């Protein structure tokens, strides 16, 4: 379907009977339009220039005789449904009744022009019959394709790829965090060298000391994971607000779900315990005198 390429605001008496349309919030903001104002739409190519430009070069003049140009009254302003695939694109959109859109965009030389649509949405009585419906359409009307909207997506989905990318970043971050934790535990254990020596001297067994270190590691990892989750919950609003502002969208970019919390804790705690075990093992397995002597 053709693109509505021009928006032109003009002072028209309110009594005039004009078709109505809705415009997106972004279009209203970009062109300074308000509800009740009248705009002119055309599919003519040069009309893609902004309304403001058109105003300055005597806007309102009729376009070529072969291209339709119609006036509409703005009935309302709507927030476009967030669409991640159009992130960063200015949502300069208008919604109007199909016959009016066709009248505006149809090729006058094409007798079928006023009958052409991009797609037809079909609501089936039985949603599970979608594949059979698709086959029936293909058989009766060659050249038409019917896709089930809830069916498997064709090709590679952008969001699956992005999720894979974020997962890869998360793996690198996890490696870095584990090294950080290991370094901290090595320092912590090294600081305890004397204490471990004394505990061993007074007769505590290696296993008992190891258990104590593991318990500490568990506490540190659990506290760290809890802090991390709380910090991300506290900062997710800021992240979302920044990106929503940056891309002028109501999309939610960060959402800490119970599943993410569960995954974080399930990853962080075993890694923490592993780091504790690894860092303390070299200390615990040493002979007492080697521990006491620096």
């Amino acid at each position: 379907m053709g693109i509505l390429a021009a928006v032109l605001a003009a002072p028209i008496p309110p009594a005039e009977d004009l078709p109505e349309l809705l415009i997106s919030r972004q279009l209203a903001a970009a062109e300074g339009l308000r509800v009740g104002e009248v705009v002119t739409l055309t599919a003519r190519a040069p009309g893609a220039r902004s309304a403001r430009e058109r105003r300055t070069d005597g806007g309102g003049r009729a376009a070529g005789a072969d291209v339709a140009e119609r006036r509409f009254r703005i009935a309302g302003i709507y927030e476009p449904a967030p669409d991640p695939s159009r992130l960063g694109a200015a949502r300069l959109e208008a919604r109007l009744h199909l016959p009016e859109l066709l009248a505006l965009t149809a090729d006058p030389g094409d007798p079928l022009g006023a009958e052409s649509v991009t797609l037809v949405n079909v609501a089936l009585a039985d949603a599970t019959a979608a594949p059979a419906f698709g086959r029936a359409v293909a058989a009766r009307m060659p050249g038409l394709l019917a896709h089930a909207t809830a069916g498997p997506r064709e090709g590679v989905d952008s969001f699956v790829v992005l999720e894979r990318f974020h997962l890869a970043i998360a793996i690198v971050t996890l490696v870095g965090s584990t090294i950080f934790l290991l370094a901290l535990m090595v320092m912590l254990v090294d600081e305890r060298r004397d204490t471990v020596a004394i505990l061993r001297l007074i007769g505590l067994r290696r296993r008992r000391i190891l258990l104590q270190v593991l318990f500490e590691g568990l506490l540190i990892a659990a506290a760290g994971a809890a802090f991390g989750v709380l910090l991300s919950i506290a900062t997710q609003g800021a992240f979302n607000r920044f990106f929503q502002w940056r891309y002028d969208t109501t999309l939610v970019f960060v959402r800490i779900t119970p599943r993410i919390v569960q995954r974080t804790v399930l990853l962080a705690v075993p890694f923490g315990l592993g780091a504790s075990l690894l860092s303390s093992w070299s200390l615990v397995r040493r002979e007492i005198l080697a521990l006491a002597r620096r």
Partner: protein
Amino acid sequence: MRAWAFALRSLLRQPARSGLGILGVTAVGTLLFDMLLLSRGLEVSFRHLLDATGFDVRVMAAELPFAGPRLTRATATAAAIARLPEVAAAVPIAVQRATARTGAGASTPLFLLGAGIGAPRPWVVAEGGDLPAEAGNPPAVMVNRRLAGSLHVRPGDVLMLSGPCGAEPSALPAVPFRIAGVAEFPFEEASQANAGMRLADLRRVCGKDADEADLLLVQSRDGVAASQTVQAIHAAQPELYAFSNAELVAQFEQAGFSYFRQISVVLATVTLFFGFLLITALLTVSVNQRFGEIAAVRALGFSRRRVVADVFCQSAVLVGTGGLLALPAGFALARWLDAILRSLPEIPARLHFFVFQPRALVLHLALMVVTAVLAALYPMRLVARLPIAATLREEVVS
């Protein structure tokens, strides 16, 4: 013993701790380096793709190609633009979907790229010849490797091409073409079959007579800046939109992939903070454990500046070593991440998200230096303010 050698010895004294510190910085530096490659990689790669075609200006009927009204009277407009003194060549380009079929019955959907024939061509010949200057019968077509591979065709073979070129079904007969050569199309996707032909032949396949094109590719004359050509086109064809490659790159960044720049800035910041924390923690603990030694060397006559320099050098050795190791690791990780992102749909096969530029390396090193300095600040302060006598007393008592 110089501060550097002294720092090295101090770090080697606790190899596990220092090794982990360097590994941590390597991990941090790897991610940082990759984020720097990502932050402008797409832009650089896109610019490179645009420049590789040999055209420096694009003319369209709307602000974005393939997203607005098509250019009408394309041949006449291209000729008018080509006559401008700033312009060396103007080539109208149209893109349509079609189906290719061989005599053996194999078929595949593909994109047809119709171009006004002149020089330069909007593709690069990889095998065989280019489209001849004169129209032939059957007409000639250039195919990409993907199409040649999927239909097992070679230069000289005949290919049947048919619509539909729009959304509506078409009953037009297939048109036979002789394959002149195999070409690379700058913006082709890895899994996309493409064929290039004359604009007139494309219209024949699609059964459309209208002299329309999606855009005009314009090449400026030698010594003329793209911005001058854009101005000249604006003056001559005020209803059209002309963009230099630089302007298109800016538009592209704004419209499509600024997400990657944003995410790279956020991740680079978090990563640097992480590295800063790691080094600060390591150095602070190390300094705390060596208070007695530091007080002793101060008593022996080491200046405050010298002991502070020792701490800084330790930070620099940790961050420097980790930062340098991060470069090869970063290149390896970038290849992996690039492969992931390049599997995004509708991404040209020659477009990359992670692109090396000297600027990224310089920025990486500069950020590492800043991290080393910031991370060393607190432990350096501890050392600088260490009271010698009190510390010696405490060490004896403890």
